[in-house]
């Protein structure tokens, strides 16, 4: 079990941001829930799930990108694809990405192509940042593990 202090090390997974006129961290409570599922049988469960997420989301995002180009103004299709991505984001607690989906949905509802494009670009950016943050996070956890054992005094 990881030390609770390691959960959100200085890389700022839970750092606040003034985007959207409020404060939203990169990850929410759901991420803790996923980490809490870790046990002796699956000691790296959170990292495994996150890996699945990025594999899945990369695929979904390129589908969306294609759809935005290939099916102009097909808001229903665009929204359906985004819903799939939103589902995965929800499951790992990707709160910033989740927020942007709501904007995208609004733009679809308004028939605002420009708005949809901008919103999708935001999702892509948030996705990239989240990936970097989580890579660093798991790296730090891995380093702390063996490092902790190494510094323990030999009796």
């Amino acid at each position, binding site marked *: 079990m990881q030390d609770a202090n390691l959960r959100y090390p200085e890389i700022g997974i839970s750092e606040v941001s003034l985007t959207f006129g409020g404060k939203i961290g990169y990850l929410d409570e759901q991420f803790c829930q*996923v980490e809490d*599922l870790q046990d002796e049988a699956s000691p790296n469960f959170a990292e495994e799930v996150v890996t699945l997420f990025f594999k*899945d989301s990369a695929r979904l995002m390129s589908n969306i990108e294609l759809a935005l180009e290939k099916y102009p103004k097909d808001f229903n299709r665009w929204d359906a694809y985004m*819903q*799939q991505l939103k*589902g*995965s984001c929800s*499951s*790992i607690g990707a709160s910033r990405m989740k927020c942007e989906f709501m904007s995208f949905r609004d733009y679809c509802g308004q028939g605002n192509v420009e708005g949809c494009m901008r919103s999708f670009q935001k999702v892509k950016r948030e996705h990239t940042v989240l990936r970097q943050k989580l890579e660093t996070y798991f790296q730090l956890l891995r380093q702390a593990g063996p490092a902790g054992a190494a510094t323990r005094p030999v009796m």
Partner: protein
Amino acid sequence: MAAAAPSPAPVPSSSPKVASPKAGDRKVVPVTVAEEVVLEEKHVLAVDDSSVDRAIIAKILRSSKYRVTTVESATRALELLGLGLLPDVNMIITDYWMPGMTGYELLKRVKESSKLKEIPVVIMSSENVPNRISRCLEEGAEDFLLKPVRPSDVSRLCNRIR
């Protein structure tokens, strides 16, 4: 004055140091005690097109000691069930919205099948749509869970598993 001489403690003539078992002492352990100790493992079929959600629901279920089979589509689920490859499924838990056949359609097919209709079906969805929920319950869904699913949601279900 006569000193009272300590009288030797009477040595019982028969006080065995080692109890030798007599016929009537032998305990017979009933076979049923051993059987009761074995946990009956329930088998849950989890259906979801999202690999992330499959991993999470499977982990939650396995942590609650269920045996889990995961499939990525309703079509595949029906295929396996129809072929008799999953003869001992105690519960089906399925995502609502999936490409191809939806969880709702899967629910209907299961309830229409004489072979499968007794299996409780639970629907999961990331969207809280009251119409959707009542339609599923009307169609015979055991329960409707909002995603992301938590371990507490699953423990709520455990009484309903056949």
